[in-house]
């Protein structure tokens, strides 16, 4: 997977977030403050512009620029969390120009680690971690088992979608939704939903590459 694949991933995220902006905001209105769609749309629009303006030369540089731009443009809880995640993933890739599945799995583990270090959320707290943790571990396992890219990414996205779905019945213990106590049950977490979109875009970008 070369630089183009990673650039395609990020621009795909920008597109899908734009499309799902109102949906993400609606999820946030139910248990948060109704800005998650606008936050990510602002952030990834800025990222797409930054990638366009000064195209990075390696997969790692694409992700690092993405992370830095998200930190500078998003704000809220999701800005530092996603920003740190992409920066850690970029750092994990180093300056290699061709990323294999093992390196990608390590990068996703690093991203998850950054989010948990910063936000201290555990699985079950009803956050983006409930998507990223099971998805990353399913992906790492599939890669370790030597599955094909398509199968491993399929496992990634399936676990992500199941994780997002599973947040519906959870009571939030982190972020704004935790203020609602039991009233947070019955709604999908907006950050979990956006994480599932981000990982689905990764699969699509990789599989679409020649």
């Amino acid at each position, binding site marked *: 997977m070369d630089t183009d694949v990673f650039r395609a991933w990020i621009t795909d995220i920008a597109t899908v977030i734009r499309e799902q902006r109102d949906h993400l*905001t609606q999820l946030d*209105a139910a*248990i*948060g*403050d*109704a*800005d998650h769609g*606008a*936050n990510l749309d*602002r952030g990834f629009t800025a990222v797409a512009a930054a990638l366009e303006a000064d195209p990075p030369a390696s997969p790692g540089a694409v992700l690092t620029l993405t992370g830095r731009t998200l*930190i*500078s*443009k*998003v*704000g*809220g*809880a*999701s*800005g*530092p*969390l996603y920003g740190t995640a992409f920066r850690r993933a970029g750092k994990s890739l180093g300056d290699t120009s061709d990323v294999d599945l093992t390196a990608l799995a390590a990068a996703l583990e690093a991203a998850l680690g950054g989010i948990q270090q*910063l*936000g201290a959320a555990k699985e079950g707290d009803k956050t983006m971690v409930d998507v990223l943790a099971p998805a990353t571990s399913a992906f790492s396992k599939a890669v370790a088992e030597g599955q094909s890219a398509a199968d491993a990414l399929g496992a990634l996205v399936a676990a992500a979608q199941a994780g997002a779905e599973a947040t519906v019945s959870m*009571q939030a*213990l*982190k*972020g*704004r939704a*935790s*203020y*609602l*106590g039991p*009233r947070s049950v019955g709604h999908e977490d907006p950050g979990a939903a956006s994480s599932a979109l981000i990982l689905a875009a990764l699969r699509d970008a990789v599989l679409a590459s020649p």
Partner: protein
Amino acid sequence: MKKLINAPDDVVTDALAGLAAAHPSLRLDAENKVVIRGDAPRPNKVGLVSGGGSGHEPLHGGFVGYGMLDAACAGEVFTSPVPDQMLAATQAVNGGAGVLHIVKNYTGDILNFQLAAELADDEGIEVVSVVVNDDVAVQDSLYTAGRRGVGATVFVEKIAGALAEEGASLADVAAVAREVNERSRSFGVALTSCTLPAVGKPSFELAESEIELGIGIHGEPGRERTTITTAHNLAGTVMDAIADDMPLSGDVLVMVNGMGGTPLMELYVMFAEVQRYIEGHGARVARNLVGNYITSLDMQGFSVTVTQLTDTLTRLWDAPVDTPGLRWGR
């Protein structure tokens, strides 16, 4: 949605331009959306920086000026500002005595201010952060992100600002800020929801006689939905929640705060009830604020903040202040 705006994406920028135009003693860093005291940085004075999502006006930009904040960063509506803004503010007000960050306890604000403090540290600026978390509607436990920072923020900014103006050290200014926070409790009630400019419809829906108890300042639903009752009964509910958490005694500072869409007339009706409650529980309302100080866009509703005073806190409260939102003694 009917709002006095040009476009949802411009509302924060346009409002800051209006604030700066109305108050020539303030300086605006428009690119970073930072409102700064015209005379900053003040040599050897501790700089006070706060900030947060927009939509809470006059907080924070309206509290920049003599005796209060040195700078305020404005995020998008209800969205924490980003570290770059906080760093710009910190640099602009650093007069060599260090900078205090006053941070309301929300995950986004905490994380972004944390990253900003690291950046400031890289530049050799000493930063101490104080977290405000006064909202008794939230249980402070393993099961939440902790109590939200709400009304006490105004008191922390005023009192810490007064001490900084006297030339106190960063450690002492931070200590008094923490003391105010520890001695303060708040509780909020919504009569209506609010509408974010970028969303265009209310964040939640309340029926004709429904209200939300225990709301924050971001249009989040509260902990409980109930039915509107008299000002007297509402004051009882709110004050019971506060007094259960912090027994009332001695002299207190009280704010009856409007959420943005509530007329002053109704806030005065509430203040009369709150004062009666407090005096009936053996404490005395020594100082007060009644008005719109920390709001939620166009929401109708109110919050009450109570702070147990000490002689020093009273003296610092009474010290001169000259900001768009609070002014006396000058």
